[in-house]
């Protein structure tokens, strides 16, 4: 298997190259097929890989392709590490990617630039696999920036639309801020560990932590900065809502299922480091909880179907961060997986709706689509139930695990649980607001648009994802409910170090408490759904009244707390303004001015000097005489000085 491992990212790369060079010649259809085939090959290989990991003695496989950067004591090779964590990730990535590729065949069917689209999508899968397979920080960084690039390219796929290009750029630049942290973390790591290889770093981490206090905290916080960028957490979440300018399958793949979870993956991967610096975990948890609640609140009032999902994604990523922060790394990854299923499904469903409504994304212009789009409706409903935490769907299992651990973990706190639960309620509410507004009630669709069910290539991935959204959680079914918590068990080798360091023990709390909390979370989820039903089905005038009553608050939330504007005024404008001022006022005026000033000084010196060359003989003679007088004066001084 070791030998095959490197082919895992190879196939999408091949697909990218083929489509990149020959896509235009082949035409749309072949391009799509090549892309799907390459990802499918990867998926197949990852299945084998998964099996291989399970049977491997050490629980991990490594393969080194070639030395990449070698100079002095710095050594980084392009090499892969396959352990349970990355095995899960490659399965999720290739699996969901494959489905979304297939979906794209239909969704992008009419776009003339399809080859470009598929080549980028392939490239994304390649980089994502590099990211999750990396066995050192540097290769991970390749993937990390690579997926950012693909995100940029795909958000701006419809490059004629300025808003799309702007959004792509925003995504890239904001991510770069995160990457700034990530790269500094790598510098710090190399500085203190003298290696960037994961396993070596983790092995040395305890001694480094003992020798250099504070270092791991710094590393952890810098890595976290990177993670907040990629995973759209406070304070760097702002790019994700804008990223919805890209094609919907892209949103599903990159901005919901895979890329945005890279931050979660990275923190989980570095769990050993974080565990040795518990402060950082607390920060992770706080950021996660805050983001979850904050984003959920913004999702409440969005009218764009994709924006709702975008904020929902941010919120759910907050959950994952919360899980990581309380030391429940496996739970975080578990939620990552289930979220990938149902959120991808939600996006694809939304895409299906948008497709059907000829690119209409405004919820206020939908309604009553249930009849015309049954497959979409039902799959969407399943996903919504899953995200709302209704048992026994996948979302319930993973989310409940997080809530429980945030309460029960030694690193947890009841406030975390409370925030998580409130968010769960909000989630249920806004998801069903979405469902009700889009699929139920009167149709508000424009008259010239005739909604229709999507083609099979789009519907089948929906169904597949729906199935996964239902059963995907069962592999981690909690012990309390008679499950085997098999998922956690599978990942244990990866998080063993961290668990031991944190001295986590599960048995402190009674099972009764766990049941109780579980019940509470189910109940609030149902209450949320009920409230949404009340507001959007039973008495649709009520939201308007509330809007009127809390107009200030509503506007605040509707405008996303003015955070974009805040960043714009506090960071972007000052920098550009500073540039403008400095360019004119300093670069041109002072620096260039100094250079030109010296030249000008010389010129005016010359102008003045030339005037003294009057050309009059008598003046020249006088100058001559003055020179002589000065020289003789000097003679006098010298002679007298010598005489003395």
């Amino acid at each position, binding site marked *: 298997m070791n030998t095959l491992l490197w082919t895992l990212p190879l196939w999408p790369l091949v697909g990218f190259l083929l489509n990149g060079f020959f896509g235009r010649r082949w035409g749309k259809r072949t391009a799509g097929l090549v892309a799907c085939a390459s990802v499918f090959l990867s998926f197949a290989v990852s299945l084998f890989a998964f099996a291989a990991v399970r049977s491997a003695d050490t629980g991990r496989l490594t393969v080194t392709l070639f030395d990449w950067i070698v100079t002095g004591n710095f050594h980084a090779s392009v090499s892969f590490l396959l352990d349970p964590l990355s095995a899960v990730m490659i399965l999720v990535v290739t699996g969901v990617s494959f489905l979304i590729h297939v979906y794209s065949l239909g969704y992008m069917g009419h776009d003339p630039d399809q080859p470009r689209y598929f080549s980028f999508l392939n490239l994304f899968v390649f980089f994502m696999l590099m990211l999750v397979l990396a066995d050192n920080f540097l290769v991970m960084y390749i993937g990390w920036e690579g997926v950012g690039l693909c995100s940029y390219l795909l958000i701006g796929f419809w490059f004629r639309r300025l808003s799309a290009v702007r959004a792509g750029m925003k995504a890239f630049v904001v991510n770069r801020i995160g990457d700034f942290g990530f790269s500094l973390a790598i510098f710090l790591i190399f500085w203190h560990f003298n290696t960037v290889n994961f396993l070596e770093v983790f092995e040395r981490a305890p001694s480094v932590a003992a020798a250099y206090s504070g270092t791991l905290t710094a590393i952890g916080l810098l890595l976290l900065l990177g993670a907040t960028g990629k995973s759209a957490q406070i304070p760097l979440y702002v790019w994700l809502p804008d990223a919805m300018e890209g094609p919907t399958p892209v949103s599903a793949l990159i901005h919901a299922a895979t890329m945005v979870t890279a931050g979660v993956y990275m923190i989980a991967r570095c769990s050993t480091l974080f565990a040795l610096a518990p402060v950082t975990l607390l920060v992770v948890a706080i950021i996660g909880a805050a983001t979850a609640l904050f984003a959920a609140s913004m999702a409440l009032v969005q009218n764009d179907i994709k924006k709702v999902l975008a904020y929902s994604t941010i919120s759910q990523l907050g959950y994952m961060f919360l899980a990581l922060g309380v030391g429940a790394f496996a739970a975080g990854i578990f939620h990552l997986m289930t979220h990938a299923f149902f959120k991808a499904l939600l996006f694809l469903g939304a895409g299906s709706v948008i497709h059907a409504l000829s690119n209409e994304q405004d919820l206020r212009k939908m309604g009553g689509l249930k009849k015309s789009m049954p497959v979409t409706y039902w799959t969407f409903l399943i996903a919504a139930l899953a995200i709302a935490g209704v048992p026994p769907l996948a979302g319930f299992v993973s989310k409940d695990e997080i809530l429980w651990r945030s309460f029960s973990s030694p690193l947890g706190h009841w406030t975390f649980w409370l925030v998580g639960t409130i968010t769960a309620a909000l989630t249920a509410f806004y998801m069903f607001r979405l469902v009700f507004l889009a699929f139920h009630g009167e149709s508000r669709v424009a008259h010239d648009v005739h909604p229709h069910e999507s083609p099979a290539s789009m519907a089948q991935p929906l169904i597949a994802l729906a199935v996964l959204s239902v059963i995907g959680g069962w592999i981690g079914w909690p012990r309390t409910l008679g499950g085997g918590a098999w998922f956690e068990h599978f990942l244990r080798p990866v998080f063993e170090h961290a668990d031991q360091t944190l001295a986590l023990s599960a048995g402190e709390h009674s099972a009764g408490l766990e049941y109780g909390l579980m019940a509470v979370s189910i109940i609030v989820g149902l209450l949320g759904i009920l409230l949404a039903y009340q507001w959007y089905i039973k008495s649709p005038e009520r939201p308007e009244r509330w809007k009127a009553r809390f107009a200030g608050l509503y506007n605040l939330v509707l405008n996303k707390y003015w955070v974009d504007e805040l960043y714009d005024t506090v960071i972007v404008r000052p920098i550009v303004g500073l540039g403008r001022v400095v360019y004119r006022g300093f670069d041109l005026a002072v620096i260039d001015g100094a250079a030109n000033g010296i030249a000008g000084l010389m010129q005016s010196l010359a102008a003045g000097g*030339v005037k003294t060359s009057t050309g009059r003989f008598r003046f020249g003679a006088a100058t001559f005489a003055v020179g002589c007088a000065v020289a003789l004066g000097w003679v006098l001084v010298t002679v007298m000085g010598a005489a003395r």
Partner: protein
Amino acid sequence: MLPVPLSYYLVLAGILFTLGVFGVIIARNVIVTLMSVELMLNAANLLLVVFARVHGDLGGQVMVFFVLTVAAAEAAVGLSILVAIFRRKGSIDVDRLNILKG
């Protein structure tokens, strides 16, 4: 023995020389300029003769002879130029030599 102390001669030569210098600077008439130069040469001549006497060396007096020659040659060339100036400008005002400057 010198009739008067050496320094008297030297100061006299200095005065004549300086007068020559001053004359060159303030004279407007080119002829006066030339004569001022002659004054300077004569101041030097005085020095040469005095020093020849002081050192008992004829070299100084011989030098005066050469200075005379040079003065004659210079006068010839200088007066030719003077004539040329006069022909071009109709004047021998040294301040009229003012085309070239800068």
